[in-house]
C-alpha cells in the first residue's frame, strides 16, 4: 500500500500564524500558534503549532511530502515595493516600520522550515486568496460552489470571486490592493478606538447600538461600490499607504472629529459609526454574492477571509435568500490559510482525489486542535495538589447542566481545541441565558471586558427554530439570526441612555444572549460532532425546559483561549468562575486552595 501524502500548511508573519496537517486530503490537525505561545494573534513562525500537528498525526517531519506556505512572498514583495514607489517620499514611515521584517524574517521561510524540522522537506508556496478559497471550499461538503474571499490584503488581491468544482478552484474576478473592504472596516475600527485586526469584532458588536447616519457619507466620499459589488476606496482619506495610521486628518474632518482614545468612554458617535460601516459592508458583501451567484450559476456559497467573520453580514446573505446553502471556514482569517494551503497543494499539486463527503462537512466541527486525556489532566491536578472529583460522561453532563441552571459560571474544557477564533464547547465558559445578570457578570467578573459586548448562544440543533429565525445550521457560530418574536420583550433603544443601562435592560426571555437589536450569534450543537456538549445541553433542557446556554471563549480579555490544563486552571482561579470541568475532572472554586498568583496577571495580557 502506498504511504499517505502528509502535507503541512503554514501561515505566518502577518496575523494569527498557524499550522495544519492534511493527510491524503483528510484534515488531521490544525492549530494557531497563539494557543501555545499564549500571545494573542501571535504572528511568529508557528513552531509549536507545527510540533503539535506532527504529534497529532503521529508522524515525523521527514514523513512530510511537503510544507506549503499560504502565500507567495515574491508577489507580496512586488505589491509592497510597487506601492511604496507609487507613494513616493511619504512612504518613508511605513517603510521604516515594515522593511526590517519584510526583508528579514519574511523572506526566510525555507530557512526557518529547515531549521525547525531539521530535515530536507520540499517547500511549496500557495497564494493568499487561493489559500482562503481552498480553506472554505475543500472542507465543505459541496461538489460545486461559488467562493467569496474578502480580507485586508494578501499579495495583491483583497477580494476574489471564484468557482469550486470537484477538486478545482477557478478564480473569476479579483479586486486589488489598496482597494480593500477589510482595510475599510479596519479604518473604522481604529477610528473608533479599537485595535486593528482584533477590534473589528467589537465594532460589529457595537453597531446595533447606533444608527447608520454616516452611511451616505461613506458611500459618497470613502468608497465607491458598483452594482456588481466591486469597489474602490478614495485614498485621499486613508493613511495606510503613507503613515502608520489607517486614517488621516481628512477622514477625521469628514466624520466630525478626532478618533476616539482607546479605553475612553464610548459615545453615540462610535455607535453610529459602527452602524454605518456595518451597513455599507453588508451592501458590498450582498452585491458581491449576487454577482457570484449570477456568474457561476450555483447557489451554494463558500466564504473565507477576515471579512467572512462578520457574522451579521453572513446571516443577512442567507436570510435574504441570495443563496440556498452557505459554508464558512471557521478559521476564516489568516490562520485558516494554513489549512487552505495544505488542501490546495494536496489536490492541485499532488493530485490526491477529493473523496465524496457523507457528513455535514470535512471540518470535523473544527475540533482540530490539541486535546488532553484524563490521565494528563489528573497528572496536572495531582502534582499541583488541586482538589477535584471525577464524574463519568453522563454524570458530568448532569452536573454541569445543574450548575449552570443554579446560576453558576462554568469553565468547560472537554475534547480537542477549536481551530478558529470562536469557542464551540471545547474551550468555553458557560452560563445561564435566562439569567438577567449573566451578561454583566461574565463581562465584568470573568472576561474583564467591555460590558456592551453580547454573548452567543449554543443551542441544541433541533431547538434552534424555537428561539431563532434561522433556517440553516450554524455549527461554527458564524451566522447572526433574529431572536423569535415570541420570546422578545418590549424594548426600544434610546440615544440618550448609557450603554451599561441599555445592556442591563432585558430584551427577551433569554436576556444574556439577545443583543439590543434582538439578534443572536448562534451556534447550533450537533450530536455527531460534539456529543459531550450536546448531552450537557440535553440535560439543561430537562432541568429548565430550555435547550440553550451562553457560550463564550475560555479566556480573559487579551488572552488567547486556554489550551492546556494549566492554562484553564489559572484562568479559572483568576476569575470569578464557579466550576471548572477538564475532561472528566470537576473542580469547585470553593474547594480550591488559595491561589498564589504572584504575577501581575492583568499586565500579562495586553488589552485587545
Amino acid at each position: 500500500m502506498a504511504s499517505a501524502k502528509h502535507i503541512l500548511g503554514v501561515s505566518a508573519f502577518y496575523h494569527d500564524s498557524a499550522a495544519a496537517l492534511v493527510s491524503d486530503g483528510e484534515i488531521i490537525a490544525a492549530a494557531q500558534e497563539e494557543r501555545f505561545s499564549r500571545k494573542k494573534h501571535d504572528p511568529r513562525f508557528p513552531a509549536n503549532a507545527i510540533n503539535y500537528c506532527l504529534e497529532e498525526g503521529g508522524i515525523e517531519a521527514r514523513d512530510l511530502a511537503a510544507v506549503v506556505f499560504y502565500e507567495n512572498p515574491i508577489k507580496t514583495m512586488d505589491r509592497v515595493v510597487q506601492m511604496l514607489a507609487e507613494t513616493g517620499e511619504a512612504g518613508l514611515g511605513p517603510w521604516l516600520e515594515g522593511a526590517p521584517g519584510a526583508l528579514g524574517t519574511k523572506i526566510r521561510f525555507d530557512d526557518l522550515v529547515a531549521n525547525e524540522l531539521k530535515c530536507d522537506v520540499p517547500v511549496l508556496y500557495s497564494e493568499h486568496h487561493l489559500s482562503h478559497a481552498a480553506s472554505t471550499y475543500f472542507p465543505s461538503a459541496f461538489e460545486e460552489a461559488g467562493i467569496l474571499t474578502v480580507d485586508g490584503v494578501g499579495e495583491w488581491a483583497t477580494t476574489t470571486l471564484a468557482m469550486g468544482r470537484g477538486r478545482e478552484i477557478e478564480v473569476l474576478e479579483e479586486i486589488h490592493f489598496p482597494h480593500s473592504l477589510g482595510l475599510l472596516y479596519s479604518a473604522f475600527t481604529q477610528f473608533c478606538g479599537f485595535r486593528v485586526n482584533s477590534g473589528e469584532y467589537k465594532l460589529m458588536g457595537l453597531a446595533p447600538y447606533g444608527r447608520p447616519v454616516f452611511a451616505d457619507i461613506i458611500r459618497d466620499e470613502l468608497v465607491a461600490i458598483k452594482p456588481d459589488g466591486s469597489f474602490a476606496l478614495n485614498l485621499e482619506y486613508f493613511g495606510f499607504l503613507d503613515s502608520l495610521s489607517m486614517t488621516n486628518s481628512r477622514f477625521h474632518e469628514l466624520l466630525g472629529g478626532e478618533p476616539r482614545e482607546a479605553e475612553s468612554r464610548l459615545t453615540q458617535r462610535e455607535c453610529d459609526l459602527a452602524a454605518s460601516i456595518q451597513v455599507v459592508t453588508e451592501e458590498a458583501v450582498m452585491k458581491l454574492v449576487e454577482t457570484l451567484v449570477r456568474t457561476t450559476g450555483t447557489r451554494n456559497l463558500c466564504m473565507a477571509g477576515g471579512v467572512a467573520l462578520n457574522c451579521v453580514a453572513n446571516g443577512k446573505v442567507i436570510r435574504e435568500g441570495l443563496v440556498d446553502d452557505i459554508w464558512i471556514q471557521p478559521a476564516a482569517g489568516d490562520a485558516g490559510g494554513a489549512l487552505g494551503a495544505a488542501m490546495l497543494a494536496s489536490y492541485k499539486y499532488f493530485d490526491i482525489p477529493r473523496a465524496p463527503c457523507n457528513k455535514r462537512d470535512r471540518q470535523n466541527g473544527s475540533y482540530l486542535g490539541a486535546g488532553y486525556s484524563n490521565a494528563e489532566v489528573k497528572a496536572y491536578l495531582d502534582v499541583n495538589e488541586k482538589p477535584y472529583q471525577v464524574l463519568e460522561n453522563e454524570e458530568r453532563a448532569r452536573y454541569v447542566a445543574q450548575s449552570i441552571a443554579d446560576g453558576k459560571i462554568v469553565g468547560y474544557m472537554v475534547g480537542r481545541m477549536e481551530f478558529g477564533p470562536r469557542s464551540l464547547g471545547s474551550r468555553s465558559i458557560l452560563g445561564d441565558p435566562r439569567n438577567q445578570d449573566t451578561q454583566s457578570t461574565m463581562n465584568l467578573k470573568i472576561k474583564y471586558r467591555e460590558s456592551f459586548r453580547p454573548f452567543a448562544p449554543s443551542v441544541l440543533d433541533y431547538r434552534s427554530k424555537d428561539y431563532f429565525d434561522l433556517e440553516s445550521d450554524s455549527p461554527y457560530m458564524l451566522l447572526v439570526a433574529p431572536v423569535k418574536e415570541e420570546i422578545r420583550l418590549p424594548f426600544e433603544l434610546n440615544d440618550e441612555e448609557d450603554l451599561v443601562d441599555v445592556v442591563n435592560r432585558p430584551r427577551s426571555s433569554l436576556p444574556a444572549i439577545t443583543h439590543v437589536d434582538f439578534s443572536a450569534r448562534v451556534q447550533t450543537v450537533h450530536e455527531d460532532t460534539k456529543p459531550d456538549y450536546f448531552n450537557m445541553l440535553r440535560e439543561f433542557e430537562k432541568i429548565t425546559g430550555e435547550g440553550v446556554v451562553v457560550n463564550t471563549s475560555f479566556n480573559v480579555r487579551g488572552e488567547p483561549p486556554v489550551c492546556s490544563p494549566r492554562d484553564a486552571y489559572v484562568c479559572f482561579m483568576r476569575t470569578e468562575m464557579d466550576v471548572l470541568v477538564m475532561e472528566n475532572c470537576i473542580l469547585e472554586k470553593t474547594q480550591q486552595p488559595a491561589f498564589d498568583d504572584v504575577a501581575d496577571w492583568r499586565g500579562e495580557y495586553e488589552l485587545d
Partner: protein
Amino acid sequence: MTLPTGVENTNLINSEDRELLTTFFKQRIVPLSEDLSIKETYAQRRADRDSFFVKRHSPSMTRVEFELDLKDRDAFAATLETHWQNRPLQPVAQDLITLGTRFEQLDEKVDLSEFVYEMF
C-alpha cells in the same frame, strides 16, 4: 524609536540601520515614483469604470507555480528579479534583498501594530 508620524516603531532597529533604510528608500525607491505613480484620480476612476474587478493572469495555480525557488537570499533575489523583468523595479531587486541581510537576525515581531493592518 519614534517615526515621523509620531507613532512608535515596533521594530527595534539601530540608528545605523535606520539611516541605511532611509537612504535606500530615498535613492532607489522614491525615484521610481514618477514611472509608477497612478495618474488617475478617484473621481475619474469612479466615473469612468463600470466595474473595479480585475482578471487574474490565469484562473488558478499551475503545478510549477507552487515551486518558488526561495531557498536562500540569493535565490530569492534572482526569483524577484525575474518577476520584475522589464519593469522599472527590476534593477532594485538584488540590492533590496542584500539590504535585508542586516535584519536576518532581528527577532520576529511578537505583536501586531495596533495602529495599522500588517500588510508589509
